[in-house]
């Protein structure tokens, strides 16, 4: 990250209706004309496009779709989430890198983004197919002042933010499968993995990892998951700008997270229930060693899934394997 670059991008963006001369830019940035020219070339390599006219200067005409540290900052209106972004073309797993950052004191809001993951993982280290450019793969660090037993609510909060982001950008309303899988037309479009390190009464850090299938074609999916997975592009027949998706996601998350910390889970619960998958359906489930079935009647004030059995008794599930399909 270079602050000169950020400043240059800001200058160009603020003057996007007019041409700015190289001399003016060099005065503003207190750089030589050659240095400015080098920076402009670098921006072009990142996907910015300029109209350059002799004696008039430069005008920014297109911001890049390509995701990079620089392009992610541009237009991001968050206060703290994503103020430090660690971007990789290819990496093992954003979750692993974010966790390493957190262990060595990485600040709240640090985001790790990868274009490709070679070892993307879901829960219990199950593989998460993310070895291509068509998805958004990111993880970020939170250090919430919560008691650890309330932290699981963050997974439901994240799911509502992800659902809202998808709805905002595509106009299509997804469903949330308890607690935090996002589905479009019964197929999985996004997954969330949340890992925490905490003591009895204090949280060291929480790492939220998000994977969303954005511009995948059918051939991007392995045959084994094709029937269960989909992408925004496949469901809506459009391509999406990953940079815009990430920025919208981070902006919505920051606001919702702050609201959750100050007002608690009640607003999250209402939002979550508006996206609930298979509400009022009867499902089979396994909780610990016990197998049972019951009707989904909502989520409790702490995010637990409420199930009503045949006798009309309500159970609160905090952890369960549910047969959804």
């Amino acid at each position: 990250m270079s602050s000169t670059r950020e400043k240059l991008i800001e200058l160009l963006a603020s003057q996007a209706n007019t041409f700015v001369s190289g001399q003016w830019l060099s005065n503003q940035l207190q750089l030589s004309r050659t240095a400015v020219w080098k920076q402009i070339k670098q921006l072009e390599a990142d996907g910015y496009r300029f109209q350059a006219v002799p004696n008039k200067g430069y005008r920014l005409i297109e911001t890049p779709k390509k995701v990079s540290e620089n392009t992610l900052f541009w237009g991001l209106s968050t206060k703290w989430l994503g103020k430090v972004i660690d971007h990789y073309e290819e990496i093992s797993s954003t979750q692993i890198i974010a966790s390493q950052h957190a262990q060595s004191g990485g600040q709240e809001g640090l985001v790790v983004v990868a274009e490709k993951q070679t070892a993307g993982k879901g829960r219990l280290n199950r593989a998460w197919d993310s070895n291509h450019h068509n998805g958004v793969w990111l993880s970020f660090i939170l250090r919430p002042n919560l008691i650890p037993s309330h932290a699981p609510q963050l997974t439901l909060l994240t799911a509502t933010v992800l659902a809202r982001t998808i709805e905002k950008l595509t106009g299509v309303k997804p469903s949330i499968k308890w607690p935090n899988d996002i589905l479009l037309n019964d197929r999985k479009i996004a997954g969330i993995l949340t890992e925490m390190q905490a003591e009895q009464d204090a949280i060291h850090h929480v790492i939220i990892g998000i994977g969303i299938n954005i511009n995948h074609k059918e051939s991007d999916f392995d045959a084994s998951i094709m029937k269960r997975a989909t992408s925004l592009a496949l469901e809506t027949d459009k391509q999406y700008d990953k940079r815009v998706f990430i920025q919208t996601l981070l902006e919505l998350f920051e606001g919702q997270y702050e609201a959750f910390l100050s007002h608690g889970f009640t607003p999250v619960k209402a939002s979550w229930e508006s996206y609930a998958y298979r509400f009022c359906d009867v499902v089979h489930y396994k909780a610990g060693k016990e197998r049972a079935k019951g009707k989904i009647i909502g989520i409790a004030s702490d995010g637990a899934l409420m199930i009503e059995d045949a006798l009309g008794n309500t159970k609160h599930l905090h952890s369960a394997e549910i047969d959804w399909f």
Partner: protein
Amino acid sequence: MIKISEIKELIKVLDASSVDELVYEFENEKLKLKKNVPTFESVPVQTAQPIVTPAIELADDKQPVTVEKVQPDYDYEITSPMVGTFYLSSSPETGPYVKIGDQVTKKSVVCIVEAMKLFNEIEAEVDGEVVTILAENGELVEYGQPLFGIKQK
């Protein structure tokens, strides 16, 4: 079969309640928990010892077995900070974080408790030796339930 951890849980509940005796029967198992209710009229309480000591009888149909109270050789319990599923390893394919006899430090991750797909890596918080594992892999655990017994250094 009722697990020791479940019996412990029941004892806790019984201790805190006004119930003096609890009998639980399921299939061939029978568990009877009874408080030694002190008689305050004649015996003044003079010690700081807990005044309630439940007696445990675990009976089989034909062969009644008495579970003797095992003297714990640990002095620190790692308890669950939340309701959830207890996992001894990070995935079914990998080995457990710790085994009985392992030395741990404050920062050692000893297990995971999962609730609502949040995976909480539990740290030992003390230096010592893992003496006993009090919950079973894949079991649902309650808030405050003991998971490990540690003998501190």
